[in-house]
């Protein structure tokens, strides 16, 4: 009996011990990866009508430029493609695309129908062997083919990265021409990539600091047409502008819309002192937001409209402060070395972009709204005036070179500090302001 009991115990122990020893799956933690553009393949969109050949090629090239221009994606040259698409419905041979290490594949078709351009496309995840999202079809007038391409790129960008795109947007800025000591400046408008440049004002007066309304159909800016800085509101559709009311004997500048588009916050100089005010866009009494002997300027609303970040030298040096949108005691958020200015609240609400001057260099940087985690993204002789892309992923700003032949250009940089590049298409320019995504 004893032996039987022992045997039974032994059997139980042998069967149960391994179970107890079961550690589950082998577990590892990856905290370090690589950051490199995701390779994608974009075969030329198939022309589904005889007259859509050039349009298909143009749209394909704009989509590729959008995606590759982000620095997040890398196009695999079409010459390396193994599979060819004769039709939009051609089944995807995933092995062929894996062979060239494509991780995403975009297949599309373009047709001309009734004077309109019709674009349809599908996005495939090569390594999961399935379509990513559903196919989509867009149509627009032939003149708006670039917007079609931008919208397709936005959808692809969104599906892969998980955040909204920013390609179908525009930038308003100050276009500059002529020598440095007699430079002509005028407002200009262009696609985010510089295409479709058009001017909103002539060069008879100095203008600067244009800002879009939340709906993107109006621009508010500062003009010297009266000899002193004053704020002017311009309707993009008809290019008509009107001065905002002001108190006699004052100068107003640095305007910016509230997120709901109902208010304009700006700086007002009177008697040598500059404070922040806000007033209804449609007219009304201005509301004073700050009251100190220091210079307060460059206000920017938080996305929820509850707070305002601005710059002030009340501490003796130029620093960033945040206060309630209705005014009140501001809280200083910048404490690093150097001077901080031109703060702009991110559309996501989590970061504030700014210009920093330190040790003879200018930087574009970002910090959290409590001032923590400050990161400088650029460094040059003169970088200033950041503006956020609609998705809060990219910052555009002005970079001016040094010397008598100095020129100003627009640059953009990813908030990671990568993919710094010049916006070539607009020529010499400054003071960019990014619009929201177009409807």
């Amino acid at each position, binding site marked *: 009996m004893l032996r039987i009991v022992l045997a039974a115990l032994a059997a139980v122990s042998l069967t149960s011990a391994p179970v107890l020893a079961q550690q589950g799956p082998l*577990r590892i933690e990856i905290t370090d990866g*690589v950051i490199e553009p995701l390779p994608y393949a974009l075969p030329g969109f198939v022309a589904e009508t005889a007259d859509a050949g050039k349009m298909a090629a143009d749209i394909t090239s704009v989509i590729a430029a959008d995606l590759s221009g982000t620095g997040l994606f890398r196009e695999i040259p079409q010459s390396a493609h193994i599979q060819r698409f004769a039709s939009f419905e051609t089944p995807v041979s995933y092995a062929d695309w894996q062979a060239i290490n494509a991780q995403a594949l975009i297949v599309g078709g373009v047709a001309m129908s009734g004077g309109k351009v019709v674009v349809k496309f599908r996005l495939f995840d090569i390594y999961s062997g399935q379509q990513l999202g559903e196919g989509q079809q867009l149509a627009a007038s032939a003149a708006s083919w670039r917007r079609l391409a931008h919208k397709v790129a936005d959808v692809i960008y969104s599906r892969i990265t998980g955040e909204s795109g920013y390609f179908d947007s525009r930038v308003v800025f100050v276009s500059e021409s002529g020598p440095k000591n007699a430079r002509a400046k005028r407002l200009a408008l262009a696609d985010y990539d510089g295409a479709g440049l058009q001017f909103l004002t002539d060069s008879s007066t100095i203008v600067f600091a244009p800002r879009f309304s939340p709906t993107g159909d109006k621009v508010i800016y500062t003009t010297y047409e009266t000899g002193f800085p004053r704020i002017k509101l311009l309707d993009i559709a008809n290019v008509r502008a009107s001065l905002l009311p002001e108190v006699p004997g004052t100068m107003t500048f640095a305007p910016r819309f509230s997120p709901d588009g109902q208010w304009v916050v700006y700086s007002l100089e009177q008697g040598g002192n500059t404070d922040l005010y806000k007033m209804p866009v449609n007219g009304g009494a201005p509301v004073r937001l700050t009251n100190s002997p220091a210079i307060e300027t460059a206000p920017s609303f938080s996305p929820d409209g509850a707070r305002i970040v601005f710059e002030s030298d009340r501490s003796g040096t130029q620093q960033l402060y945040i206060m309630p949108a209705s005014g009140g005691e501001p809280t200083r958020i910048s404490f690093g070395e150097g001077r901080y200015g031109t703060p702009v609240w991110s559309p996501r609400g989590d970061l504030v972009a700014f210009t920093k001057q330190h040790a003879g260099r200018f930087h574009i940087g970002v910090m959290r709204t409590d001032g923590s985690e400050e990161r400088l993204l650029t460094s040059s002789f003169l970088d200033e005036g950041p503006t956020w892309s609609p998705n809060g992923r990219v910052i555009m700003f002005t970079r001016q070179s040094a010397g008598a032949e100095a020129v100003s250009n627009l640059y953009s940089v990813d908030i990671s500090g990568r993919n710094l590049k010049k916006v070539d298409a607009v020529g010499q320019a400054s003071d960019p302001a990014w619009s929201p995504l177009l409807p």
Partner: protein
Amino acid sequence: MPMERADRIGTGVSAALHLGVIAWAIFGGAWIKPKPTDPVTMTEVSVMSEADFAAMMAAAPKATPQTSEAPAQPQAAAETAPTPEVTPEPEVTPEPVPQAPAEPAPETAPDLTELTQPTPPAEVTEVPPEMLQPEIVPPVEVPQDTTSPDFSPRPRPKPAPRVAPTPAEAPAPDAKVSETAVAETRPEEAPEPAPVVEPPKEEAAPPEATTEIVTEAMETEDKPQTSAPLSTPRPRSKPAKPAPEKPAEKTETTSAKPASDKPAKPAAAKPAATKPAAGDAVNDALAEAMAGETEGTGGTGRAPSGPPVTAGEKEALIVDVKACWNVGALSSEALRTTVTVRVAMNPDGKPDIKTIKMVGFEGGSEAAAKQAYEAGRRAIVRCGSDGFPLPSEKYDHWREIEIVFNPEKMRMK
């Protein structure tokens, strides 16, 4: 006589000369000294500086009024010749003249710069390093922290030396101290095998090195493994042989390799069975146990046998996976999301792609987790296509892998 005269004359002359020399030496020096002071610096200072200052003073005040007069000078110069004498003055004025009209233009420009930009001085570059730091800091490979816990118990071997030097027979005093620590671990395991096997072991070798050093460090962590390691390490090689026989009976398994691995474990237990060979009943029970184990190994219930995957082998796997984990196209929210992905592995080290699934995430929304999961999935598929560098003899330990993709060091803050 003439000689006397000559002597007198000579002495007289010499006396006169000597007196003269003495007188010159005495009085002449005093007269001469002040003379050299006259020509020294006084002439240079007084003459040169006054002229210069006069010229400068004359020129300086003239400069400002000349700005207003300057425009008129060209007209006079064209008609009258005497002006050349005044030309040196115009040479000074031309500079201020062009500056005067140039100033008004800059005066308007400063207004712009004051509003839009702080005065831009240009010089040094020190901050770039600050930009690099935040990026460089994250890369610092703390990932070893994940493996470090495996090594953390090492400090415990230190107490081992105390135990080791103690002779085997000195247990009485030492036993009290060591018993408390050892008794907690051993009693649970020892009581069962004790009646069968341990008696001979105690005599042969209370393997001092193994029991004192190895077990103390290992037991605390690997209490459950203490039984497994003894039987697993060697059995592995044997299982391969019996494998083909048993799978042939079951014929349920799809792939041959996993089938060969399954019998490996039962075979691993064989050596254990040989020890208790003394009793038939025990053998039978063991055989039943073994049979039961083989039958039950079809799924997750199978216990890994053999030595566990070492930290180095884990590290090799980590290196392999992270090389394909590309977070470059992830959103900032996805970069704040940690996802845990589980995948079943084939014996050849290749992942079974169909089994890849996300078993958890934290730090972000579901949409962000999906993006982060896709990046992790791509990493597994891409780098696993050629098989991960895993020891085939330890397949039971990695037949299923759980990978935590934590972008903490990759995220954009």
